[in-house]
């Protein structure tokens, strides 16, 4: 019995490492593909990247702003409730800024991108593979890593970064509006406190997390979408797996980067 349990655990660990290996291999191919791009394929990649940014960032702006506004307001209400008991409301904007910029902004945007674009990427890749479209592209000399994966990763990085900036700004604005309703707070004081709260570590964290999430989400979702083999029934399984794994990686990477940068 203990041997069987050990065997099962061992198989799962082996599978996890195999998946990690195959994702790393794909990322390596992507980096190589980027440096091997010739002039005209580079233009094609830029065109596809632009489309990706439109779908991932521009089309997500309304939902991103709404989420940020509500989250900023709710977070401030909670923080205000805690701080007012100690009479330190003047730290309100600093706490809000650090909470939103360091953690909530990248995390919420990551979740938004997984739920909107990650699922779309996994579904698109799976259905294009099942229809034989990808085989035909490859047979006709189109490098699938360069044409499909690279623009999605480049678009993912740009989109996550842009959305995080918008998210942070709107969340802080939402927080200010809530604070202004309850406290005699001026915008100048709020902005001044914000300026003091945002240092090089916050900027480093934002840049690093955007780069990590923007790379990981398209890479994982595309890779899991491409794993389907024959049947359309594999499609929902592939999409679910892509979302769950992306979410798990998002949380793990977010926590790890926060520990590395702020510990």
């Amino acid at each position, binding site marked *: 019995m203990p041997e069987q349990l050990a065997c099962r655990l061992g198989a799962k660990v082996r599978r996890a490492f195999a998946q990690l290996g195959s994702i790393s291999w794909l990322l390596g191919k992507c980096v190589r593909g980027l440096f091997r791009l*010739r*002039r*005209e*394929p580079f*233009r*094609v990649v830029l065109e596809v990247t632009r489309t990706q940014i439109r779908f991932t960032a521009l089309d997500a702006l309304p939902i991103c702003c709404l989420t940020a506004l509500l989250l900023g307001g709710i977070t401030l209400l909670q923080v205000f409730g805690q701080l007012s008991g100690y009479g330190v409301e003047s730290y309100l904007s600093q706490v809000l800024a650090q909470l939103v910029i360091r953690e909530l902004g990248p995390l919420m945007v990551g979740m938004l991108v997984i739920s909107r674009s990650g699922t779309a990427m996994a579904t698109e890749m799976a259905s*294009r593979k099942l*229809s*034989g*479209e990808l*085989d*035909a*592209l*490859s*047979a*006709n*000399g*189109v*490098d*699938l890593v*360069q*044409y499909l994966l690279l623009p999605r990763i480049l678009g993912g990085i740009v989109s996550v970064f842009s959305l995080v900036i918008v998210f942070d700004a709107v969340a802080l604005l939402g927080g200010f509006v809530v604070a202004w309703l309850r406290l005699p707070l001026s915008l100048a004081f709020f902005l001044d406190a914000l300026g003091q709260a945002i240092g090089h570590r916050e900027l480093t964290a934002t840049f690093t997390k955007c780069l990590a999430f923007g790379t990981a989400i398209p890479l994982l979702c595309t890779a899991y979408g491409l794993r389907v083999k*024959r049947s359309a029934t594999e499609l929902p399984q592939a999409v679910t797996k892509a979302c769950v794994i992306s979410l798990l990686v998002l949380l793990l990477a977010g926590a790890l980067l926060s520990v590395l940068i702020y510990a």
Partner: protein
Amino acid sequence: MPEPLLALEAVTLVSPEGRPVFRALDWRLGRGARFHAHGGAGGGGTALLRLCAGIAEPDSGRIVLDGTPLEAGTLHPFLARGALGWVPSDGGLAVNLSLLDNVTLPLRFALGLGRRDAERTALAWLEKAGLGQQLHERPAPGHRECWMASLARAAAKGSRLWLVDRPLGGLDAASIQAAEELLSEVARDPGVTMLLVGGAWMSSLGQDLKIGNGRVFSGGEP
């Protein structure tokens, strides 16, 4: 003996249902050779084309294209330079691109042509394929336009090896005539190698090839 363009060495292929399609198959396709295989669906013609294009992976044995073995997960240099004209039954076009963009894409990606040059070349071949009025339409999978545009794509790239499968759902008389003329024009180049499957109207373009019992017989041998 000159090196063949394509060589299947002891290739065994088993269908996903577990039925053997080819057993230890040795077959060579010389440069400039043209073959046409008859037979309906399930006869092994499509499987042979998919093997030759590197789309189906053999269960054992290897396939050597232009002196280099085909390997899963890597883009073969012959394919990377756009020398393979792959025309599957359903056309294999990207449904999110127009017919013109579908033909233009490999010209820009594999041949490195600029957008304008690629569009000019694509336009000329799409017109020959009878699709001059539908350039900006998106393909509907399975329709004759897909297959005809796929033919135009292979021609526009200046493919050296043509692997052409029967069109899904057949073609009308006008399309057959356009396809015949297009293939005949391409076949005027003696360096072009062709393997065509299905469609009696294609039989004049190549020697008879028989596929059966897991074997491939060239030149009408049993």
